[in-house]
């Protein structure tokens, strides 16, 4: 197991360097001026050139990449051009808020997904299966920003039950897990949960149906095992794939959603990315993408290790 974990960690290193290079290049090859955050539209080219030198954007790209990577390795992602605040502080604050949202959304999405998936798989081709599958398809198919807007119109504008935007009465800095704050979380969490719920439902349904048709299940039943014990075996066999799918979904949610966070003005990494993109704040954009990509890589690593722990066949492969 230790050798497997070491090997997986070793594989992560080139991935991280590639991710850093890709995110650096992506933001630099996009059109537009990186100084747009500190230069008004009407600033002269002369002033733009002066600031380009002051910010180091006049240097060759490989030099800029080298400096940025070296600083990043040392925990310094630079400073936001627009605000002057350290990128790392900005990103970590936003990521914290996205994690809050992702945890809430994962709790809702995975719980519902597992429930609907299992009953749909178990009662395959019955009306229960059709209802659960319809819910799953709706969850996957509805554009989530549209769903968010509809939820806001119903629950905030019409019924006035829940707040439409924000992360608490005092902002995310004063966040607490009480009703005053969690009521701000409900609508964005439900919106974020819709797609994972659908995907988990469909995955678990397919897995459950497949496993139930296998010979060993027949054997278990023939041995006279009670249905609840048979079901436990089904769950155990479905677990590695389900875990991988949920891990990926959690990764997506931890990456934040630009659309959902913008619709709800939720101050997470998606809203931060939105702001960085529109302001062409390159250090902030690079730093945010890098941190989110690293999260994803790390999460995949953890899922791989967890899968190997559950299913010993994986580490042998």
């Amino acid at each position, binding site marked *: 197991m230790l050798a497997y974990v070491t090997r997986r960690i070793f594989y992560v290193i080139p991935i991280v360097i590639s991710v850093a290079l890709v995110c650096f290049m992506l933001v630099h090859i996009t059109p537009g001026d990186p100084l747009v955050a500190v230069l008004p539209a*009407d600033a002269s080219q002369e002033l733009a050139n002066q600031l380009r030198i*002051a910010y180091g954007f006049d240097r060759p790209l490989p030099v800029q990449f080298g400096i940025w990577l070296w600083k990043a390795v040392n925990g310094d992602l630079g400073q936001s051009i627009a605000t002057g605040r350290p990128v790392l502080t*900005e990103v970590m604050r936003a990521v914290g808020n996205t994690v809050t949202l992702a945890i809430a959304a994962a709790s809702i999405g995975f719980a519902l997904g597992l429930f609907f998936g299992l009953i749909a798989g178990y009662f395959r081709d019955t009306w229960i299966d059709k209802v659960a599958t319809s819910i799953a398809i709706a969850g996957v198919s509805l554009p989530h920003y549209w769903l968010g807007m509809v939820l806001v119109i119903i629950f*905030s504008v019409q019924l006035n039950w829940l707040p439409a935007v924000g*992360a608490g009465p005092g902002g995310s800095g004063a966040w607490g897990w009480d009703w005053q704050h969690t009521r701000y979380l409900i609508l964005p969490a439900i919106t974020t949960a819709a797609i994972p719920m659908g995907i988990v439902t469909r995955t678990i349904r397919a897995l459950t149906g497949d496993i139930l048709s296998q010979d060993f299940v027949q054997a278990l039943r023939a041995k006279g095992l009670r249905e609840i014990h048979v079901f436990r075996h089904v769950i155990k066999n479905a677990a590695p794939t389900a875990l991988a799918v949920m891990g990926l979904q959690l990764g997506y949610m931890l990456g934040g959603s630009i659309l959902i966070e*913008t619709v709800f003005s939720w101050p997470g990494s998606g809203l931060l990315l939105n702001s960085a993109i529109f302001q062409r704040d390159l250090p902030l954009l690079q730093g945010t993408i890098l941190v989110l990509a690293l999260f994803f890589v790390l999460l995949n690593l953890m899922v791989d290790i967890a899968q190997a722990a559950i299913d010993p066949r994986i580490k042998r492969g």
Partner: protein
Amino acid sequence: MRTEKSAKRQRMAVAMMLAAASMAALPRIAAAESLLRIGMTAADIPRTLGQPDQGFEGNRFTGLTMYDALTMWDLSSADKPSVVIPGLASEWKVDDGDKTKWIFKLRTGVSFHDGSPFNADAVVWNVEKVLKQDAPQFDPSQVGVTASRMPTLASARKIDDVTVQLTTKEPDSFLPINLTNLFMASPAKWQKHYDAAQGADAKAKSQAAWAAFARDASGTGPWKMSSFTPRERLELAKNQNYWDKARVPKLDKMLLLPMPEANARTAALLSGQIDWIEAPAPDAVAEIKQRGFLLQTNEEPHVWPWQFSRVEGSPWNDIRVRKAANLCVDRDGLKEGLLAGLMVPATGTFEPGHPWRGNPSFQIKYDKPSAQKLMQEAGYGPGKKLAVKVQTSASGSGQMLPLPMNEYLQQALAECYFDVQLDVIEWNTLFTNWRRGAKDPSANGANATNVTYAAMDPFFALVRFLQSSMAPPVSNNWGFINNPKFDELVSKARQTFDPAERDKALADLHAASVDDAAFLYVAHDVAPRAMSSKIKGFVQPKSWFVDFSPISMTP
């Protein structure tokens, strides 16, 4: 009997408790703070350190609220044009012997929010924060948004505690107008942060001091920073000691929330979560009004134009073509049909009533027969259309609805024998190209560009487009306009130091630009904002800015 007495006693006790509770609540009710909650269009709180980013929305919310400049805009009237009035300087005059030197007399008895005095040292310090590269407080991040808005200011020198001398690179009568953009931050507060800052060298310490100052800002404005959560909320409290007693805010607090998405802002307003939103979603305007909210609009110093290329070979070099385009657009149709009334038809950069309007002889209006006649005189007709190409964006600050509006122009101009091709590019790229000019390959063969502009001061409204020396890379004369008459009028306006005479010279310049049909003038934005009917005392001036001081709220 005993039971009856006991019940009476209980009732009495309950009554006394209720009375006590009411008494306890009374002071709280009396002391309830009035709070105005505003949803901005910005995706982030504009910078709070004195020189805001995010364009004039930044100046509106974190500039003019917490800070003052030496000169400021009169925002008291919805009818009259907003003009420059004394701010932290009570009076000023140019040196008769050397027109590059200005003497500014400062207001006395003004203090920063931290209690330190505002004086000539503070003015010099604030000028040097953006102009003197070896000053400890020099901050490159503030240079872009400031230096470009006061292009001729060179230096400042203290004469005495209440007198300061400002020097320009060349004689420039626009200086007092440009100075509305230089906000006075507290040097004492900054120094305190600098002394406490960690950093490898003075530059790093300075950067850290500015970052700390942004979190704990201090200006002289009518509002003080009360609490700040970056990217989420900025709470301002009224400055009870504001130097202009008539402008001490009536409200206790104001909360600024970034909400870049128009539907989210609108939903937050309609659900009662906030009291005021900037730029409501156009589709929701009817519902906003129907639910009893107020929609405020007024003509804004903003122009939605096509800026013509005047380089060799451009079809716009023929004045008949330029005039025909201006006469071929039904601006009222655009206003009522596409923009639901949210625009003012443009007949120039300034409309009648503005001191810089002048008396142009060419009247911009919808007159299709005259436009067609002009085009025929220029050699075009139904069988020979004039191909023109305009670069525009799909969205962008101040661009209103660029694609539908340009498609409207495309159809309108087709009736006057124009064949308009649209080159749609991303907004930031569009105005990066704007600085490069029509001769640059980035123009992609376009002979017009559709970048909207603010027309608050003469440099930004006229000079940077019309003066030949402002051609790229110097400034925004994208089309390389080279008209000796414009150059002469610009020089005259810049060197006329009597304000009334200067305004007359600017009016002549504007009239000349309209007579020359320098641009295709299409629309002025009206800065729509929606607010709760509880808000009283609000005046929407003809400006990008708003005075929050007279606003109150009914419970």
